[in-house]
C-alpha cells in the first residue's frame, strides 16, 4: 500500500457524495453540459472529477477497469482502499477509467443485454480539455442542440446505433464533468 493511497478521499462522504451524484445526474441527464464536481483529491494522474466519480459510484460490487495510463500502484491502491472495487479486465468492467487512447477500441466494453440493456459499462474518459464545441449532440436531455469536445465521433455514432444497448460515458477534465449517454445522437461538424 502506497502511503498516498490513504489520503484524498471524502471527509464527509454522505454529503459530498450526494453533491457529486447530483452533478453526475445532471451531466448524464443533459448531455453536453459541463458540471463542477469536487470533494476528493485523488493521486495523479487522476483528475479531481474522475476521482470523485469513482468514489461516488464505485464499490465492492462494481468491477473497474483501469486504462494503461491510470494503472499505476498509487492509483490501484487509492481505488482499492477508498472503494473496494475489484480491478478487472476490459470485458468484466462495469466502470472503466482512462484516457481515450487507453480505452480504445471502446467496442470491447459491455453494452448490456437485449432484455437488460442496463447491464452496460460506464466509461470515465480523462480529457486534456472539455468545452462546448465540436461534435453536434441531439436527443434526450437536449432541448435543441448541444456541442461537446468529444475525443472522436465515429465510436459514439456506432454506440448510438446499438440503442437501447450501448455503453455510457463521462468525460472528465480537472474539476469538471460532462455526460454522454448512449441515447445521444452525435454528428461531426
Amino acid at each position, binding site marked *: 500500500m502506497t502511503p498516498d493511497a490513504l489520503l484524498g478521499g471524502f471527509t464527509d462522504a454522505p454529503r459530498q457524495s450526494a453533491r457529486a451524484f447530483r452533478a453526475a445526474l445532471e451531466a*448524464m441527464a443533459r448531455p453536453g453540459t459541463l458540471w463542477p464536481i469536487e470533494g476528493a483529491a485523488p493521486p495523479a494522474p487522476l483528475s479531481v472529477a474522475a476521482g470523485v466519480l469513482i468514489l461516488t459510484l464505485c464499490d465492492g460490487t462494481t468491477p473497474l477497469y483501469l486504462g494503461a495510463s491510470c494503472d499505476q500502484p498509487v492509483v490501484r491502491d487509492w481505488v482499492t482502499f477508498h472503494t473496494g472495487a475489484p480491478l478487472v479486465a476490459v470485458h468484466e468492467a462495469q466502470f472503466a477509467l482512462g484516457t481515450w487512447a487507453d480505452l480504445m477500441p471502446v467496442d470491447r466494453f459491455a453494452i448490456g443485454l437485449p432484455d437488460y440493456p442496463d447491464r452496460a459499462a460506464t466509461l470515465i474518459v480523462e480529457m486534456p480539455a472539455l468545452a462546448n464545441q465540436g461534435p453536434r449532440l441531439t436527443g434526450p436531455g437536449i432541448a435543441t442542440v448541444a456541442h461537446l469536445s468529444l475525443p472522436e465521433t465515429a465510436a459514439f455514432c456506432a454506440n448510438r446505433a446499438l*440503442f437501447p444497448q450501448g455503453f455510457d460515458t463521462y468525460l472528465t477534465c480537472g474539476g469538471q464533468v460532462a455526460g454522454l*449517454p448512449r441515447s445521444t445522437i452525435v454528428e461531426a461538424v
Partner: protein
Amino acid sequence: MTDQTAYNFAYLDEQTKRMIRRAILKGVAIPGYQVPFASREMPMPYGWGTGGVQVTSACLVPEDRLKVIDQGADDTTNAVSIRRFFQRTAGIEVTEATADATVIQTRHRIPETPLTEGQILVYQVPIPEPLRFLEPRETETRKMHELEDYGLMHVKLYEDISRHGQIATAYDYPVKVEGRYVMDPSPIPKFDNPKLGGNAAIQLFGAGREQRIYALPPYTQAISLDFDDYPFTASKADHACDLCGAPDSYLDEVITDDQGSRMFVCSDTDFCGSRRAAGHIGPMGTPSAGG
C-alpha cells in the same frame, strides 16, 4: 465520517444510495426502460411510496428544498409524513411552492406550474410495468419490451374504443418514450400526460415493491398511445375551479355538505392557493388560501 446522527444523511446508507444512484443513471441513459434495483425496507408501508422515497433519498443534497404532494395536495398525511421524514433525516428545507422546490416527490399528479431546469420530479409508482395487466409474467413482459412487441397494448386500447366509444383509460395512460419503450407514467390523470414529454425537469420514477427505477431526462419525447381515428385527448372536468376560477387546471369534485352539494376545485393546492393570493377568485372562493 462526521455524521453523529443515528442514521445516515437522508436515511439510507451509502452503499444502498450508490446502488440506487447507479440504477438512476442507467435509467436516465435509457429513457423509459425499467432498471431493476434492490429495494430496501423503509420505515413506512409500501403503499406510502417507498420507491419514490428511496429515489429521493439517493438524490437529495443538503441544499435542496423539498416539496411533497399526494394527489396534488401538500397537506395529506402521506405528504406530510414524507416531508417530515426528510426534514429529520436530511435536514433539508421544505416548501409547498412548486417554483421554489428543487426536488418534488409526487403521488398521482404533475404540478400545474411548469417545471424548470434544475428541478427533479420523483414519482411514487405502484405498478411500473405497463404491460402487466396484459401479461402477468415478468419474463414475458421483458421479452415484449425487448422486441418492441406492443401490439397487445394497442389492442387493449382499441377494445376500450369499441366498448365505450372512446379510450376509457383515465389514469396510468401509457406513453411511448423516444419511439422505443412503452412506459407507465404512474397513476397520474391522463390530463397530465402532455407534461411528461419535453419537460425541462428531470423525471425519475421509483417502484419500491416492484423494485424498478426508470426515468425521463429533460426534453424527452413521451407520446401518449393513440390511434389516427381516436387521437389522445387530455381530458378534465368541463368546469372552472370554484375557488380560483382557473379554467385549465385539473379539478377534483368535492362534496361540500350533507345535501350532496358539489364544487370543483384544483387538485393542485399550491397552484389554487397562489392564484387566490394573486387575486383570482372563483364563484365559491375567498382570497385566503384556506378557501
